[in-house]
Each structure stands twice: as C-alpha cells, then as structure tokens.
C-alpha cells in the first residue's frame, strides 16, 4: 500500500531523514517507533506533502507522491492525524468533523458523521462546543474523528497517546486496534514502545533518520538490543 525507498528530506539545509526505507501492506498496523528528534514527525510531513522529497521515492497504492500537494495526497486517501492534533479551536466540534470531508468523501458526510459519533459518543454530546474548549483527550478523539471523515485508505497517527492519562492511553490503543480490525490500514508513530508493539503487526525503529531495526512486532518485542535500549530491560 505504501512503499518508501531511500527517502531523504529535511528543513532548509538540514537533512533529517537520511535514506529511509519502509513498506506498509494493506490491513496492517505498522508502528514507527523512536525517541524524540529521530525524524518521526518529519517523515509524516514528507508523507503528507508538507515537506518536499529531496530524493528517494514514495509510492502510495502504486502511484508516486513526488510533487503531490497535501490536497492531492488527501484526495488519494492518505490521511495524517498530526502530532498536537491541529484541530480548529475557533470552530465547533461539528464543523471540525465536517471539514474532515472537505477534499474527500464529501458525499458520504452524513453517514460518516454518524459513524464518527458512534465511535466517539462524547463528541456527539459536544457537537456544538468550540473545539478549543475540549479536554486533551477529547481533542485527540476529535482529531482522529476528523481524519476518519475522509474515509482514509491509510491513516497516519502521530503520537495519539501524547499528553493523555494512562487510562485514556489504554482506551486510545484499544480504539486503534478496533479501527484496524474493521479493515483500516494504520501507520502508528509513537514513543510509547510497549503498547505500540502490543497492537502492531510490523514495527520499525527509527534512529538518526533511518530505520535501524524492522520486523514483525512480536519479534521486535523480544529483541534483546531493543529491550535494552527502549524498554529498560
């Protein structure tokens, strides 16, 4: 579904992603893990067209994303729920969700709204409330709900557990697994290594702008080097 080969990109003159390879098959949850500052968010920005590709290729469902604008990429069904949520604080919850279908799946807006409200009943209660007044957890739900409104083929979730209480983090990971079981392909970008490996099919560890270790999530969870570096075991 997504195939990245030899990707290089960064900001200005500074290279952040230095020749990264990654593949995601349909129906999978692929976890992209790594500490702060290894390039996770930069990778996501390149995938959603916010940063230009310096070299290498990104193929999404068989077509190249070279030169594609963020709007093209959304239209193709690659939806990115960014770190920090980036919801529209000055607009109501309902309007935020509606804008999720601005570029894609506009005709299915009604059905998808119902679906989002079924997944997140709390959002239905707060439909007319300004999004900026929601709690952190609710804002994260809104960001994911807004992403789902576009009927993603591949959903990138960047740090969905960031800043949430342990209970909500648990809830969030359960939800991600449920969405995946309903057929959605998910790229989960996280610092939360233990829980991510728990729900992912495949995982890759990002270090210094490259994938250092890749493999089935269960295998990575048992990898002694990884356990030392990331799990403190």
């Amino acid at each position: 579904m997504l195939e990245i080969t030899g990707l290089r990109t960064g900001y200005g003159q500074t290279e952040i992603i230095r020749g990264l390879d990654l593949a995601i098959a349909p129906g999978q949850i692929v976890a992209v893990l790594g500490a702060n500052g290894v390039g996770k968010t930069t990778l996501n920005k390149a995938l959603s067209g916010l940063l230009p590709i310096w070299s290498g290729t990104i193929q999404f469902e068989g077509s190249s994303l070279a030169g594609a604008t963020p709007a093209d990429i959304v239209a193709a069904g690659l939806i990115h729920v960014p770190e920090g949520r980036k919801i529209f604080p000055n607009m109501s919850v309902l309007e935020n969700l509606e804008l999720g279908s601005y570029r894609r799946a506009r005709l299915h807006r009604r059905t998808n709204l119902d679906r989002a409200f079924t997944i997140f009943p709390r959002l239905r209660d707060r439909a007319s409330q300004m999004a900026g007044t929601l709690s952190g957890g609710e804002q994260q739900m809104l960001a994911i709900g807004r992403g789902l409104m576009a009927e993603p083929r591949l959903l990138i979730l960047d740090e969905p557990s960031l800043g949430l209480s342990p209970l909500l983090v648990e809830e969030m990971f359960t939800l991600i697994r449920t969405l995946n079981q309903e057929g959605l392909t998910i790229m989960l970008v996280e610092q939360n290594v233990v829980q991510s490996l728990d729900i992912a099919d495949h995982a890759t560890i990002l270090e210094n702008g490259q994938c250092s270790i890749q493999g089935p999530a269960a295998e990575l969870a048992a990898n002694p080097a990884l356990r030392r570096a990331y799990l403190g075991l």
Partner: protein
Amino acid sequence: MYTPAIVAEAMVNGLLTGAVYALVALGLTLVYGVLHIINFAHGALLTCAMFAVWAASELLGINVYLAIPPLALIFLALGYALQRFVIGPASRGDDANTLLVTLGLSIAIENALLAAFKSDTRTLSGDAAFDVVELGPMLLSRPRLIGFAVALVVALLLWALLRRTDSGKAIRAVAREKMGASLMGIDVRHIYALTFGIGCACLAVAAGLLLPTFYVTPRVGQAFVLVAFTIVVLGGMGSVAGALLGGLLIGVVESLGGLLLGESLGQAGIFVIFILVLLLRPTGLFGARA
C-alpha cells in the same frame, strides 16, 4: 443647542454612512484575520473600484446599482489573481515582504490612475444624489438608505458564507490552523487568494454604494482606509462582527462630530476614538488576542 430631532437625524445619517464604512473595513479585517497581513493596497483598490463604478455609469451608461453585482465578481477575480500571482509569490511567505508588496502595489495603482484620469474630481452626473426619503420627521438621503440596506445584506451574506459553506469554513480554519487545514486537503494558497478576492469584492460593492453621494479622485481611497483602520482596531483585528458594529459606531461619531464641531472637523472624533481604543482596549471590542 440642537433639537433632539436634529441630533436624531444626524445619528441616523451616521448609521447610514457607517454601514458602508463597515463594508470597507470588512474586507480589511477579513484579509488581516486570515492572511495575517495588513493590506496597504486596500485604499488604492477601493479607488480602482470607484473609478470602475464611475466608468460603468458614465461611459457605459449602466445604472450604478445594476453595475454592482458584475463589478463585485470582477473584483473577486481580480483580488484572487492579485494574491495568487503577485502578492503571494512576491512575498515568499514573509509578512514583512507582504507589507512592502502591498504598499508598492498601492503606489503603482494610484499613479496609474493618476496618469490615466489626472487628479480631477469626478462625480456621477444626474441628481440622484439629492433624492430624499421622508421618514417621520426626518429627511434621509435615498442613496444612503440604499447603501445602508445593501451593506447590511452583504455583511449578512458574508456571515452566511463563513458559517454555512465549506469554503467559508475552510477560510475560518485556515485563519487559525494552517497546518491542520492543509492536512484536511484544504489548499491554503487557494483560500488565501479567495479571501483576498472576497475583500476586493466588498470594496467593489462599497464603491458602488459610495459613488452616488461622493466623488472619485486617484487618492480618494486613502481617506476611507484611514477610517476603516480605525474601525478594524475598534472592532478587534480580524473580527467580522466587530467591523460591522465598529463601522456603525464610527459613522455615528463622525456624523455627531460634524454636527457639533462643524463638517470639516467631524473626522476628528474618529481619531479621538482611535487613540482611546489603543490606550484603553487595544484588542478592540471583539478582539480575542492581545
């Protein structure tokens, strides 16, 4: 002293003028709220629009009010193109550059108009400007009444556009969260240009409403833009409701100032308000941020 009837008439006249001021300010505040730039070309574009209205009426013989809708569309397209192909690319994402580009544009436009039309003062021929309507004890200018009604309708349409349509919602989204909007597939450059175009369309409508009772020269826009800036600051930078209310208020202040201090000093009241707002409430009536 003045009788209550005279004061009331001055206030009503102020409201009528104020609604058209509000329309000029709406364009300015919308562009500021979304693009976060102060459009120094606003006055020159208003002048342009006023010349366009004058030309439509005097050279082509089109009724002023019938000329407004097509001119609004033309200015929508013109504003869109200006932002998309001139201001946007020339400023390279730097706000300081945008100030210079719009300032440069305003100088270029004004001088082009000066070269084409000289500095003569032009008015619409005919005596429609002197039509009055009797409303109870008051005698009100008909073109100003029409201007008031049309300006309010346009403000209402703008409000509905921003609240009810996807494009309007996208404009509000881009105003506060550019990256989030991009990730929803909203083309930020398109929304910037559309917003600038809407600002210019407001100017075209305002020009059509002003001209029946006003004159046009190549520098006439500047006077209105100074007032519009005051309204925007009074209402709160970027606030549409603030621009409307601020416009009406400033219209009344100017009219009462004219009554009490004499016509030529009427605008002094506006600038007293401007200074007071800056001193006492710099965020304006509806401004959210400091």
